């Protein structure tokens, strides 16, 4: 019998779900065994099933979900030792007899960006090499011209996965053709160009890039190196959020290994003219730095404030050198495209959106996590088939795409395909892949207020329309959620939205009104309910709701009174209790603690 491999997923989600003690137990029990090797791998995307343990034997893979120490013992005793599969915890396998509970979700996916995630140990370059790692880089350096590489990327139809969807090949061509690349005084060899990776994943609700960097950092490095070859760049920078410590750690380990392996540095793959190295620049917490000119200012060490374009970064970027900026997911696609050919990539997708898109599925769904689906799949399929539908059998209300720059798509538009143009037509944007699902218990006015509060805080302050306009919009929304809104507020919001879009320099300001505009477009009734009826239909806005106890059903257990943080509930033991609405802070703790469900919200 060949060696059995047992792996555990330890990306951030795995660790947060308690994966570390399981990993330690696993290593303790299996270390020293000749017939078994253990591995710490990254994220498979089934975050709702974490921690995940995988047994690989005789070429067959069995993934177990919700593995605590007890389940781990069973996996070792029964599967590893006696070859008996534990059906209750099996979520995936390639063994036809036991498909596992999550096989339908797996079947919907096409894993290009996530080809290695959750399968390899991200801290070992040998694992990446074993899965065709750096073969694409070797192929471009040894057999392809710069034009060939750009043509291949253009033919694949790959577009920027950061959200705007600009064709990657075209971006590379601009950077290659940049006039500043001609040798001049500041740039004597004409090779002083920058290849930047935007890993400042600031959309609150998105975690695709974190997962790729944690689980498969070499694929991003290889993608950047291929791009550097194509545009003729010698410097690389990965601008990564400081909030992602594991991603930064894994990147730095991978960069060190790539240098030792000769995939970074001087004369890569024997080409004396190809010198390229990368360093990681940690962001310091500013959403606007995802905007490319702000990101450049931040790399240069200053306040991350955007500047007008032109000049575009392709002509004048980091330290005024020609600069190409792509996002993590874009780069991670590149090695696969080079190795498998543009056609293999462009066969997925519809219209001008080719390939796949990774989504971070979150919110009120049953199966949160990461999923990579072919472009063109409908939002309905993503939410109901891949993400498992709405949790607790509640009713779907909207899906928020693109974070603070995006919008809410309602039920009747759920057949919209995942495609840049189709999603833009709804008023939302594809964005970087954050998908937050909302159910009937989510108040869309509150969500609009939430996003406005976010962009207002993150506005860099340069453009008055963005700085002051978002503030005024936020004040109006706050008024509405407090029940102090008036009918004219709707027009005011719409006017302000149009002005902020026109009067802002960068993407942050230009898109900041999107969450308000889309909710006004699709959920105007809810705004009107807040303004005219002073009611929050979703029962979220604290000033518009009231908690009360049904005295006929209250058993007087006192649990609610004990839970109440402000002592607003009174009543004798075994007597019906009552809530003093003036004291009540609408936290809902009483309702959560009531054993007979006699507390209601109106």
């Amino acid at each position, binding site marked *: 019998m060949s060696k059995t491999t047992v792996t555990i997923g330890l990306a951030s989600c795995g660790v*947060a779900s308690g994966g570390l003690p399981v990993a330690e137990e696993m290593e303790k029990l299996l270390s020293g065994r000749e017939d078994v090797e253990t591995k710490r791998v990254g994220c498979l995307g089934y975050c709702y099933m974490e921690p995940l343990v995988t047994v690989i034997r005789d070429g067959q893979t069995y993934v177990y979900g919700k593995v605590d120490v007890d389940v781990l013992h069973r996996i070792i005793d029964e599967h590893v030792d006696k070859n008996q599969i534990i059906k209750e915890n099996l979520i995936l396998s390639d063994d036809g007899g036991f498909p596992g509970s999550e096989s339908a979700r797996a079947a919907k996916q096409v894993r290009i960006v996530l080809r290695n995630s959750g399968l390899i140990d991200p801290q070992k370059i040998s694992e990446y090499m074993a899965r065709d790692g750096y073969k694409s880089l070797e192929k471009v350096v040894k057999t392809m011209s710069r034009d060939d590489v750009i043509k291949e990327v253009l033919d694949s139809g790959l577009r920027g996965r950061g959200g705007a969807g600009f064709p990657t090949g075209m971006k590379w061509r601009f950077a290659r053709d940049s006039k500043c690349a001609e040798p001049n005084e500041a740039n004597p060899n004409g090779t002083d160009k920058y290849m930047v990776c935007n890993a400042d994943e600031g959309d*609150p609700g998105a*975690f695709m890039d974190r997962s790729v960097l944690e689980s498969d950092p070499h694929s991003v490095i290889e993608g950047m190196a291929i791009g550097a070859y194509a545009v003729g760049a010698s410097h690389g920078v990965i601008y990564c959020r400081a909030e992602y410590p594991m991603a930064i750690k894994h990147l730095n380990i991978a960069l060190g290994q790539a240098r030792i392996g000769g995939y970074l540095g001087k004369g890569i793959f024997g080409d004396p003219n190809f010198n390229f190295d990368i360093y990681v620049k940690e962001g*310091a917490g500013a959403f606007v730095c995802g905007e490319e000119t702000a990101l450049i200012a931040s*790399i240069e060490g200053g306040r991350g404030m955007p500047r007008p374009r032109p000049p575009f970064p392709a002509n004048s970027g980091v330290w005024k050198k020609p600069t190409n900026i792509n996002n993590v997911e874009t780069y991670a696609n590149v090695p696969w495209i080079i190795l498998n050919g543009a056609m293999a990539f462009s066969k997925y997708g519809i219209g001008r959106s080719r390939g796949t898109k990774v989504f971070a599925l979150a919110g009120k769904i049953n199966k949160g996590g990461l999923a990579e689906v072919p472009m063109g799949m409908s939002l309905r399929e993503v939410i109901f088939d891949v993400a498992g539908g709405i949790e607790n059998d509640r009713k779907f209300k909207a899906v928020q795409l693109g974070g603070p720059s995006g919008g809410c798509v309602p039920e009747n538009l759920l057949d919209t395909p995942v495609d840049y143009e189709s999603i833009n037509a709804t008023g939302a944007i594809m964005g970087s892949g954050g998908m937050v699902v909302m159910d009937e218990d989510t108040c869309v006015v509150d969500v609009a207020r939430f996003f406005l509060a976010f962009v207002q805080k993150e506005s860099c302050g340069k453009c008055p329309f963005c700085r002051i306009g978002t503030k005024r919009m936020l004040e109006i929304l706050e008024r509405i959620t407090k029940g102090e809104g008036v009918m004219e507020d709707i027009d005011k919001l719409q006017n302000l939205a149009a002005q902020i879009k026109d009067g802002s320099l960068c993407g942050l300001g230009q898109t900041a009104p999107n969450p308000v505009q889309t909710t006004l477009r699709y959920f105007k009734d809810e705004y009107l309910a807040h303004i005219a009826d002073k009611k929050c239909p979703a029962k979220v806005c604290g000033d518009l709701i009231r908690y009360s106890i049904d005295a006929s059903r209250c058993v007087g257990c006192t649990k609610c009174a004990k839970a109440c943080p402000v002592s607003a509930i009174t009543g004798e033991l075994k007597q019906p209790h009552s809530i003093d609405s003036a004291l009540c802070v609408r*936290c809902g703790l009483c309702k959560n603690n009531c054993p007979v469900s006699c507390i209601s919200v109106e």
Partner: protein
Amino acid sequence: MAVAISDMSAKLDPIVEKYRGKQGVAIPLLADVQNEVGYVAQDALKYVGVELGIPAAELFGVATFYAMFRFQPQGKHVVRLCRGTACHVQGSARIAEQLERTLGVKDGETTEDLMFTIAHVACLGCCSLAPVMMVDSSVHGRLTPEKAIEVLDELRKEGVSC
């Protein structure tokens, strides 16, 4: 809180030397100062500014632009409550209120006993476990207001016993 100049040079000179003569250093420089001193102290900022020939106003401008930098000493434990979209729709505002009621401090403030600093952050990237908070370096997911307080109570107990 003033720091004696002699203390300051011992602490900050190695940092100053690390960045002398380099360009674009403000962010990592400030991060190192914060790590060493515990926060971006005004005196420290002036000191490194003079040594490196960068106006203190410029450093201050950079420091106030980014969420990572703080201008007050922080508590023993830093509680980063995620206020991202996924956490928001899963009720993180209720947790924020509960933390505020229980600890008596708001976002960005530190309890009087210097035990906890509360920081609201945009997203911790653990959206599938929402609502989430990170206490020091450990992430706690699927929180309720009660569970959040239990986590802090545990830390308080540990603090007393050791």
